[in-house]
């Protein structure tokens, strides 16, 4: 498949507006401006575009709600708070192909009737901030942003808002709180952001990759777009692969490419021919899979059928040198660190899980610890304010589900069998 989102990124000047245009950029926007907003939303619907942030929510549905709300002004927020461990799919767009995002946002803004947009960029991407700001300035200069886009009186203003290190801000209501200058803690829903979002106005929050699909989608039309990849959730998808493969990195492939193919075909297989032990297929919050469960299409519809989730498409491949108790412990350390503290089970439970796992990992586990882990995880799952706590609980549950003997061995032997 021809690359769409990561087109031209080998070009060292790819972030420049003229290079972007040379490579065929800023074609979707003029076409979109020739359409009625409603027609754009229809094309997106026809295309079957789903949000690439992790939940896979149908984009057209979100847009329809927001555009139907009479409150004004409306806001379009780009979620560039890519914080899910293992995920680095948005970074190449932000750093190397910023104009595809800007073009996508201008199209979306027009479709929604949103006149203001912000890119909520994670604090850990300082380089991307400079690139984006330069690109936005260029887009203003050339009339792709501003008060009179394409000479058609269309108004869309865009600015970058830098986060400051909080995974939870990837959750859209937490992102909104953070943009408003508050702690990034999720809000009560309803009301949903499409009705009462940032600054209490109708707001659409879409992921970087999602928005970057728009120029191409509009250019080729929804019908043609829907033919790419999985029929249930079509389009190009960026998979980012890390860990013990020969060629880790970002791969833009049709949605639904099999996990096995990604690892063994695109990434050149296991590093140094070592044996695969486990794969986390969609970022650390998604259920870990053992080697015999990786023959599955990587999309929003099929992954749940195979016991995991597509998540952000961040594949972490682990060979036999890895102690999975330690990975689980490290993951919980992450969740504990990132828990926002708003709700009890997540605030207290993630730390408790981490402490128990730490004991096991350090050879101080006792009989009953595995049952305790499962019980505590059970007390978190489904009881938290937002999905962060669920993620933490399900990591523990799935690691134990697939690799229980390794946990038992740690407790029995009082040490790690892999790393000694």
């Amino acid at each position, binding site marked *: 498949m021809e690359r769409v989102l990561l087109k031209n990124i080998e070009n060292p000047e790819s972030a420049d507006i003229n290079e972007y245009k040379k490579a065929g950029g800023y074609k979707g926007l003029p076409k979109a401006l020739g359409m009625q907003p409603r027609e754009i939303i229809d094309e997106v619907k026809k295309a079957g575009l789903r949000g690439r942030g992790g939940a896979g929510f149908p984009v057209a549905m979100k847009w329809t709600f927001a555009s139907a709300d009479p409150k004004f002004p409306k806001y379009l927020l780009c979620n560039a708070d890519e914080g899910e461990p293992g995920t680095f799919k948005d970074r190449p767009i932000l750093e190397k192909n910023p104009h595809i995002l800007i073009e996508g946002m201008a199209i979306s803004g027009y479709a929604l009737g949103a006149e203001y947009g912000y890119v909520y960029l994670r604090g850990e991407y300082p380089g991307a901030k400079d690139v984006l700001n330069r690109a936005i300035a260029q887009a203003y200069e050339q009339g792709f942003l501003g008060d009179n886009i394409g000479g058609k009186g269309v108004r869309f203003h865009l600015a970058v808002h830098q986060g400051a290190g*909080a995974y939870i801000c990837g959750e859209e209501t937490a992102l909104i709180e953070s943009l408003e200058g508050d*702690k990034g803690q999720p809000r*009560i829903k*309803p009301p949903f952001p499409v009705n009462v979002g940032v600054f209490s106005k109708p707001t659409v929050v879409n992921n970087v990759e999602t928005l970057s699909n728009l120029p191409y989608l509009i250019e080729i039309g929804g019908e043609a777009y829907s033919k790419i990849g999985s029929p249930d959730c079509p389009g190009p998808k960026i998979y980012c692969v890390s860990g013990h493969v020969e060629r880790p990195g970002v791969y833009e492939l049709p949605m639904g490419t099999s996990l096995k193919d990604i690892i063994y075909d695109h990434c050149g297989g296991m590093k140094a021919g070592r044996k695969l032990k486990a794969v986390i297929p969609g970022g650390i919050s998604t259920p870990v899979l053992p080697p015999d469960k990786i023959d599955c299409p990587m999309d929003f519809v099929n992954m749940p059928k195979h016991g995991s989730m597509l998540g952000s498409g961040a594949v972490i491949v682990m060979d036999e040198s890895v102690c999975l108790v330690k990975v689980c412990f490290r993951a919980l350390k992450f969740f*504990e*660190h*990132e*828990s*926002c*503290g*708003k*709700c*009890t*089970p*997540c*605030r*207290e*439970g*993630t*730390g*408790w899980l981490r*402490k*128990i796992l730490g*004991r096991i990992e350090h050879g101080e586990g*006792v009989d009953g610890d595995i049952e*305790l882990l499962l*019980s505590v995880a*059970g*007390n978190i799952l*489904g*009881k*938290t*304010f937002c999905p962060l706590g669920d993620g933490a609980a399900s990591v523990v549950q799935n690691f134990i589900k697939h690799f229980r003997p390794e946990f038992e061995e740690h407790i029995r032997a009082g040490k790690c069998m892999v790393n000694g």
Partner: protein
Amino acid sequence: MITVTINGKEIKLEKAVTVLEAARSAGIKIPTLCWHEQLEKYGGCRLCLVEVEKMPRLQTACTLMVADGMIIRTETDTIAEVRRGVLEFLLINHPLDCPYCDKAGECELQDLVEKYGLTKGRFREQKRKVPEALEDPVLVRNMERCIVCTRCVRMCEGVQGASAISVINRGGHSHIEPFSGGRFDCEYCGNCVSVCPVGAIMSRLHRHSYRPWQLGSETKTVCPYCGVGCTVVVQVRDDIIKRVVPKLGTVVNNGLLCSRGRFGYEFVGNKERLTTPLIRKNGLLEPSTWEEAIRLIASRLSEIKDKHGSNAIAGIASPRCTNEDNYVFQKFMRVAVGTNNIDSTARTGFAGAQGFIENIFGQGATGNIISGLANSDAVFVIGGDPTTINPILGLQIRACSRRGGNILTVGHMKGLRYYTPLELRPSVNTEIALLEGIVSALMKKKGPPGSHPVLEARLKDLNAQEADLPRICGIQGKDFSRFIDTLAEAATPSFVIGKDMIQSKGGSYGLFLVSAINYIVNGRIYLLSERANEQGLLDMGCAPDLFPGYRPITYPEFRKRYENAWKTGLPDKPGLTIFEMMEAAKAGALKCIYVMGENPVFNLPHTKDVEAGLKNLSFLVVQDIFLTETAKMADVVLPALSWAEKDGTFTNMERRIQLVKKAVHREGMEDWKILSEISSNMGVRMNYSDAEEIFGEICRVSPLHRDLNYEEIEKGDAIYPYKGEPLRGSTDEIHIEKSAGREERGKLYLRVERPLFHSGTLSRKAPALVNICPEAVARISPATAAALSLKDGDIVRASSKTGALELPVAVDEAIDDSAVMLSNNFQGKGAFSLMEYEIDPVTKAPCLDSNQIILEKVNR
């Protein structure tokens, strides 16, 4: 109509509410911790999770809105299990120090754990250790007990609006801290203490001194401090006040209090309280008996009356005493002594301003409902920061802003600085010009309403120089236009007037202009009141020109009415105001002053003059709870009972009459009782058996109080006009004296600071308030500090024509460059000792804004 089923019970609801509210309405209790009726919904604690049919996950009852046909279960085995799980999470880091914790017995966490039965701990790890924070004089923080429900923070930010505390860090490291990390340095309302469900933020005042279940009594009464009249519940053990708390659902303050109300009660049990009458013998005040003291006073008063006439005697009543005390006081002065020389410190502003405004708009014009401020679409504030003078009223203004209303201030109001005020800050000496400009601009914009020809006639000769305002007042033209536009567009504006406006040169003219603005935009006026019963005292006739019921004595038909009621002839000429009393005393015309519950030496400006007047008297009686500066000069001092020790009523600034109830027993007599004993000794029998009987008489003679009784008051909402129509309309005469201050630019002028933590004599006998704010400071602007090379804490000598003080300075960005702010709260360091005054010819209030002051650094 929405129908939902909760635990099999069908509930019909008029409008969509939360599942929690729906359940409560049907008497079904769902456990909560982070939810609180005064606070914004949060959904964090997860205790209220319930099962809702057709919803995949458990739902929080406090956030989920009901929908028609919803079927909800709140107590199932699954839910009990979930709640046990949540409680276990809350306990893993909890110190379980209930035997030592003051909250035990009223701790919501303790009660829930007891209900859901957690017995065995599974947490093997190290608990979070955080030492108790004891840096603050009034509030203790114990973050090991904190469950991060954030009720305190939501209270502090969203209701109190002080934003003094916040959640620090995140996740498991979250805890509550004031900015400094130690001392709160906040408004000390203590409303965080009220809402804390556990023992994480508590008052230090009663620390480890009792258990909640050991309280002897709880008495619902009215706060003794300011004119807002908050309901307080006084909790007592062994006749010592342990705690003062607010009550949810009360009309005026609905579960909120300010620092004075909550932490200022310790004066009641202060060891310095007077216990026995004192009589001056050989120049010294010596303990005596009631019998001797009463006989002495009666005979001396009769003697002076016989020798110099009734008008050689004057009385000063008390805005801290009850209506019953004040009623008996004026009756004693009028009937037993035979004089109208009755006044009070209400004369320093409130009395004259109210009279002036009522004269324009009719009686009751200033008696507006405090909570109405929050519903106004604009609030215009002038002459003082309501958030410190009348804090609970100030909260209503903050609430107004939060609801989208506009706050318009003339001058800088520090307590409103985060409420996006449209602020006009006229330079020295130009407030009147600005007000004239506002009137004129509004007249152009809105035109005369046409309903008050007398007032409109007075607007014709207005000398407004709108175009020149930026130059004259030093304000921005665009700010002025925005101010005018906002005011003109307001549909329900309110006006809040503080004493600084009344006590400025040209104050009555300023009041007229504000009244005119109010008239043009059809607003309502609130007059800030610093004392609990300032309104009541006036309504009781403790004024040289008023009978009870706020009736002018000059009307013969009113006088007749009271002569009939009291079965005696009454003096027909207005008596002396409190300032005239001091003049007359100095001149020798006045021989005796009887002071009830007031401290004129401290609470009137120009201390030296007051002292000279009082010294010149041949007989001074002071009836008080402490040996005040004034009492020290007296010939006889009588110990009175305090607010907590007697029954009666207070009338707040809304003219809401509320019951003051005895909470603590103490030997002694109520003020009214002392007065009736003296009166009887003078041959005018007063034979009241209790306060209620006096109130019965008040209701018979005062048309303001007609048909009222304690039982009615108890039911609530006893607000003037209690029954019937307003009693006095506007007059066709508005007296204006145009004048304005004459401050010179470049000089410093002394201004009275009215701090949140003090009120004068009472608050300085309340250790908690003294600990919060221990000493007098002179506040100056950064520019003044720079010009005089002063920094925070430097000691200065502040001198004026009338005296000098040494005290530290505090540099404060909120202070005008021409001003030095000094409170009148600390013994020997009061602003009034440095002030002279002129009397406003219309309101008879003192004008205090022309006092130049010089600061010199004292090198130690």
